[in-house]
Structure formats: C-alpha cells, structure tokens
C-alpha cells in the first residue's frame, strides 16, 4: 500500500497533475475576482441596462433593492464566492432563472460544435501537415500553405459570409442559420451546423497543420531519421513510426490551444450563424451587467483553458519515454 502511495507521489505525472490542479484552482479564484472587478468597472448596472432609456430614478432604486445591487461590491462578491464554494451558481439577475439551467443547454451546444469541428479539423490538419512535411517545398506543400494561411487571414465572419453566399444562397445545400433545437435528431443537427463547422475548421486548420509540418520537419533532420532512411525504410513508415511520435509534444500543445479556442472564442461565428452557444450568452450578460451569469460563463471558459492545457501537458509527457519511466 505504501509502495503504491510513494509510486503515486514520486510519479512525475501525478505530481504534476496535483500541482497544476492546485495552481488551476488559484487561477480560477483570481479570474473570478478579475471578472467581478471588470464588470463592476463598467458604467451602469443591471437595473439601468434592463430599463434602458426607460430608467426612472425610483424604478431603478426599486430594482436595485430587489436584486440586492445596492449592497457594497465586496459583500456581493464574497456572498457569491461562498455560494459557488458550495456548488451553487445562483440565479440570473435578469431572468431569475437558475444559471445552471441557462448554461447547461448552451454549453452542450458549444461542446457539440467544438467537438464536431475538432473531429474534422484535427485529423485533417495532421494528415495535411504530414503530407506537407513529406513533400516539403513541392507545389503540394506550397498550395497547402498558401490556402490554409489565406483562410486564417480572413476574419471569421468574412469566411462565414462567403460560405453562406455560396453554399446556402446560391446553391441551397445547407441552411444559413444553425438554429438547433433540443429535440432535433443527430443527423439533422449535423446538417444544420455544417457551415459553422466548416468555417471554424478553416480558421483552426492552418495553425495545427503548420505546427505538424514544422515539428515533423524538425525531427526529419535528426541523425536517427537519416539512419532509418539509410536502412531503406519507406517514407511513410519513417514519418508515421519514427518522426511523428517524437514530434507529438508541440503538436499536442497547439491542438489543445485550438480546442480551447473552439470552446471559448467562437462568439462571432455563433452570431453569424445564430447558433445558441455559450458565447452569445456571455455577450448578452455583459451588456446587461448580469454578473452571476458572466462569472459562471467566465469560470467555465477558464476551466476549459486550464483543463485542456493540463491534458496537453500530461499527453506531452506521456509521449516522452524519458518522462514516462522515471528513475
């Protein structure tokens, strides 16, 4: 038993995971404080934002009293923090609905879009990256580089509008708005989100592909690859069995960053395609100063980043035999 314990403690992966989780919690605490200060610093509050031009002083006062917005900022923050510690996200100030209910469905949608895009984009990026490395400096390599870089250079909404004009308005292949509902069958859902999925794929593809290419090319210049080549092993086997495993660490990191982006950074695409994801909720909540919802969404985004980075580090370590089998 003690041997197992010491193995766990001594194993660098578990040690790192433990440390990183602790640091992650600290990060979340700092982020929640920053979000709170940030939203507080914005002019106006929920009462004024909701009532807009109709804000009469006495209505605003009644509104603030009802939602306890008249309490000092630090009191509100620590009340909120105390509730979150007990796993209670609270209610939205604007609609009075439980935040978990508001966020749940939208977060699922965000994950659905991000997941589908990842399933398409990651294998595609790896394959194209390997092809580009294999046929380095040929026309194929250049074409891939130019086209993916071109796609990433345009703003997302521009790519989205081009796709809509072509594939939706001109040839009615896919719907121009991706308003999915709770009771849609999976195939219909996939068809509905085709265009945002393609848009996001185009946006994230170049980064991952270029990194795959660069990492593999890096490894290809090492002596052991030359050795393999001299032994007469086929090009594909060299890349797949010898180069790729040694190039994985940086690729994994880039993939993790892009995955995180797919979860937290797609609000523009959500707006253009009217996709009910988490980004739109966050934007609306900020503009209405609905602090608990902003906090909750912000924390989810932060958890995503911290979690994906941690996963990337763990995977990178596991891809390295020296770290996998410590002395």
């Amino acid at each position, binding site marked *: 038993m003690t041997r197992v314990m010491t193995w766990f403690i001594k194993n660098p992966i578990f040690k790192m995971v433990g440390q990183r989780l602790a640091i992650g919690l600290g990060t979340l605490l700092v982020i929640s404080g920053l979000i709170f200060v940030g939203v507080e610093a914005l002019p106006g509050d929920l*009462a004024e934002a*909701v009532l*807009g*031009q109709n804000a*009469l002083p006495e*209505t605003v006062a009644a*509104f603030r009293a009802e939602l306890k917005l008249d309490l000092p900022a630090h009191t509100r923050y620590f009340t909120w923090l105390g509730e979150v510690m007990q796993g209670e996200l609270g209610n939205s100030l604007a609609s009075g609905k439980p935040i978990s209910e508001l966020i749940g469905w939208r977060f699922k949608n965000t994950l659905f879009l991000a997941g589908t895009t990842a399933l398409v984009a990651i294998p595609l990026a790896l394959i194209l990256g390997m092809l580009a490395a294999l046929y380095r400096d040929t026309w194929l390599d250049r074409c891939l580089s130019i086209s993916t870089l071109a796609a990433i250079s345009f703003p997302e909404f521009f790519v989205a*509008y081009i796709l809509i004009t072509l594939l939706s308005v001109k040839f009615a292949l896919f719907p121009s*708005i991706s308003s999915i509902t709770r009771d849609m069958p999976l195939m219909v859902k996939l068809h509905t989100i085709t265009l945002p999925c393609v848009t996001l794929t185009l946006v994230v593809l170049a980064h991952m592909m270029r990194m795959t290419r660069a990492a593999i090319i890096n490894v290809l210049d090492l002596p052991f690859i030359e050795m393999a080549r001299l032994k007469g092993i086929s090009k594909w086997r060299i890349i797949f069995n010898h180069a790729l495993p040694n190039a994985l660490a940086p690729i994994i990191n880039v993939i993790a960053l892009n995955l995180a982006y797919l979860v937290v950074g797609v609000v523009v695409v959500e707006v253009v395609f009217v996709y*009910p994801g988490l980004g739109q909720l966050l934007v609306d909540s900020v503009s209405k100063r609905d602090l608990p919802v902003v906090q909750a969404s912000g924390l989810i985004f932060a958890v995503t980043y911290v979690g994906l980075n941690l996963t990337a580090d763990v995977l990178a370590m596991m891809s390295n035999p020296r770290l996998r089998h410590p002395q």
Partner: protein
Amino acid sequence: MQKLNELESLYTKGRISRREFMRRAVIAGMAMAVAPTFFPKGARAAEGPKRGGRLRVGMGGASTTDTLSPAVLTDMMMQTLVYGQLGNSLMEIDNAGQAVPELASSIESSADASTWLIRLRKGVTFHNGKTMTADDVIHSINIHRGKSSTSAAKPIVKPIQSIVKEDAYTLRIELATPNADFPYILTDYHLVIVPEGSDGTDGVFTGAYRLKSFEPGVRSLTVRNPDYFREDRGWFDEVETIGINDINARTNALKTGQVDLINRCELKTLRFLERMPNIQLVKQNGYRHYTFVMRTDTAPYSDNNVRMALKHAVDRQQLVDAVFRGYAVVGNDHPISTGNRYHAGDLPQRVYDADKAKYYLKKAGMDRLKVDFHTADAAFLGAVDAGILFRESAARAGIDVNVVREPNDGYWSNVWTKKPFCACFWGGRVTEDMMFSTAYAENAAWNDSKWKHRRFNELLVTARGELDEVKRKAQYGEMQRLVRDEGGVIVPVFGTDIAAASQKIGFDTPAVNWELDGFRAAQRWWFKS
C-alpha cells in the same frame, strides 16, 4: 422566365410603371408570357385571410436575458411574443390609429374625463382554463403600480389613483388628473392581462396563441389557441420566432426561405432585397423619431436664438437621403408624426437655411458658434453619420459642430440627459399627450431638454382633459408650434419601420403604432393560398 418574374415583382411594388413594364417585357421577348390576370382591374383584388401554416419569424431584438414578464419586455422578440402572440390588453390600436376595445367590451368616461368605467368582455378564458374577471385585470394593472414596482410601465400607470371593482365584469378607474386619452394608455404593451397572482412568467395569458416552448434569446414556439375569443385573429396554426440579431443572418434566412418574415431590414442593401421576386417589403411610417437634444438650462442652448440657429443648420433631406437611404420622413422639430391624430400639417416645413441660421446667430450676439455634439450608434443606427453630415451643413452656416463619438455601452446612463447636446431616439407615442408629457412637460423625468415653457405646460393640462375634438386639435397644434419654434429639441427625421416578408404572406394595412403591425403581425397576418 426569371426575368419576367423580376419585372412582375417590380411592377407590383410600384417601382416601374405599367408602360415601362410592357416596354421591358417586349424587349425581352416575353410579352406573350404575361398572365392575363396580372394586371388587375382597379385595385388589387383583396384576398381574404385563411387559416393554417407555421409562420417562422426571424426576429432582431432578442436577448438571452429576456423574460416573459410583462413588466420588462425590453425588445422586439418579447414584445411581439407577449403582446403580439400570447396576450391582450384592455384596448388595442387599430390600423387607423384609433384605440378600440380588446379585452374590454366598452369604455366610457365621466364628463371631466377623470373617471372611467370599463366593462370587460365576458367568456374570455386564460390559457389555463380560468375565466377572466375584474380581479385579474386589477391585479395585472397593479403589477406596474406601487412603490416597490420595478416595472418599466410605472410612469404610464402613474396617473391612476384608484381601481374599484364594481362587479365581476366592471371596473371604475379614478385618475389623479383628467385624461381624455386614457383608452390609449390601456393599449400599452406592458399592460397585458395575466391571471390573478401570476407575474406572467409562466406564459399564461388570454391571447391567440399558447406558449409551447421558449428559449430566451433563441426561439419561441406557440400554437393556436382554439378557445381564443376572436374569430378574426390568429390565422396561423403555429408561430415560431427565431431570435436573429445579426442583420445579415436575418436577411439570408429570409432569402433562403428558412424564415417567412424578418423585421428591421438593412437600409444599405434594401434595394437588392426589394428586387427579389418572392419577397415583399412592409413599410410603416410610424411614430419613431430621431432627435438632437439641447439642454435649455445650459449655455449657450439657454438662448432660443442659438437653438433656432442650430435648427436651421440641419439639412433634413440630406439626412433622409444619405443616412436613411430615403426610407424616412423629414421632421419638423416637434415629436408628433403624421400617423398621430392631431398632427399639425399646416405648420410650414422647416428646411435647411444657412442664412437664417446666421441671422439667429447674430440675434444671439455671436459671429461664430462652437458646440460639442455627443453621439453614438446606440442613440440610433446612423447617429454618428448624421452627426458628421450635421457638422458639414452647419459649417456653411458659420457653426462649428464638434462631433464627439461616445461609446455605445452605457449611452443612456452616461450621455443622454447628461451632455448638453446629444443624439437620441424616441419610439414615439400613440397620443400627443403621452409624447409631450413624457419628454416635454417641465416636471417629466425624461424632459431631456429641460425645457420649461409656461404656455406649453398650461396647454398640456388643458388639452389632456379636453373631450371636444376641435378644441383639442387647436390646442395640440399650438403646442407643436411652440416646441418647433421655442423647444430644445431638433427633430430632423421620423423613421420608417421596414420589415420584409415572403410573398406568401397576406395582410391588411398595418397599424403603425409599433413595428410589425403594432407588434401583432402573428395575430393579424395570414398565409395566402
């Protein structure tokens, strides 16, 4: 054939004449293909309403913070859902701009217009099966009253002193001051009737459709209420409202047939949309107007000569043409639109006149004037462009307008009523009294120009209680003149609400009190066969 369809569509929309249509058709060699029934005899044959179908609306003005509470209803999505599909008020505005009974069956006032007797329609049931009585109505109005109320309609119901239940279907309302327009107040979209004890958030109302599902900011689905008390309303089987705030996404959704109706079209691309054969535009010249507000309690705007100089330095027609692409109507520096009952059409139209501006400037004892004009697109879409055009036209009149672009975020709390000269918009009001009492009366909270005019304020009270139509028209006419010539607000432009719909949709002349036929397209419109 595609070309012919386009020509036909241009003709039906009145963009080309019959002669022009035939000329183009002959050139295209298609004259023979024109259906003999295409040119109707006389007016276009009216096609009556028909039941059935699912109306899909692409709605701009949706937010994930939306709620079904009638006390909030911040934007189009909720206004058309709660007031347009689910609920009813005691009175409604018809397409002639008149207040007519809806849940009330009759309304009559005492001779001094301060006591109102309202009889309710009998046999109206809520979506949960409960019969509507006076108790429900009293409860529904009281939601907005009282000290602790957070309702946006609080100022609207403020004149109500007491509500007394006479019997189960009759109530008597006492007003603090006489108001001949009280029936119009009862048409307000916040004042929808909910069952006693409810705050409306469960979606139970009396309206033509019942709520099936609602996802704030995303989508709502309603189905026809078979027990609705009106036979001539609610033609669709189902109404699906999809929140689409992005204007391009909305337009594309209509073009690709994913929705049948969109609101708030983009003016820049409107002519392309108008040319599409299966799409019709619905234009409403309503009460909405855009204003440049000067605080009359702050120098130099405290001098009416300065205000008059600035009023003459705005090129209204240019604003209409350049900022609103022709889809707007020039204003005459008062907030009463041509759609209002007592619009003073006999007042001469104020036009851009650099010489007059200089004349008033001189009268104020100045050679040149330099002012800061605060604006942002939050005030109204195009307000920044309007500011720039204003600067150009004012420069020729010797006035240096410095356009200060403010952030959209928090515009209403930080700029409007705070800065001495800024851009603003008003949704307008269905009655002259509501408009003037809200934004021009001396003690009104939203008197954004801080204007205090004795004669105007006297007239306001007199006209409010005046039941004689002729006298009233004269009084409101004088008030419009006072605001125009002495007020602190420049009203350069009245907006046009433009929606676009599939040609399959039929409707009567829309009511202009709110966008989309007074928010009630889903109730009043239908699918043609």
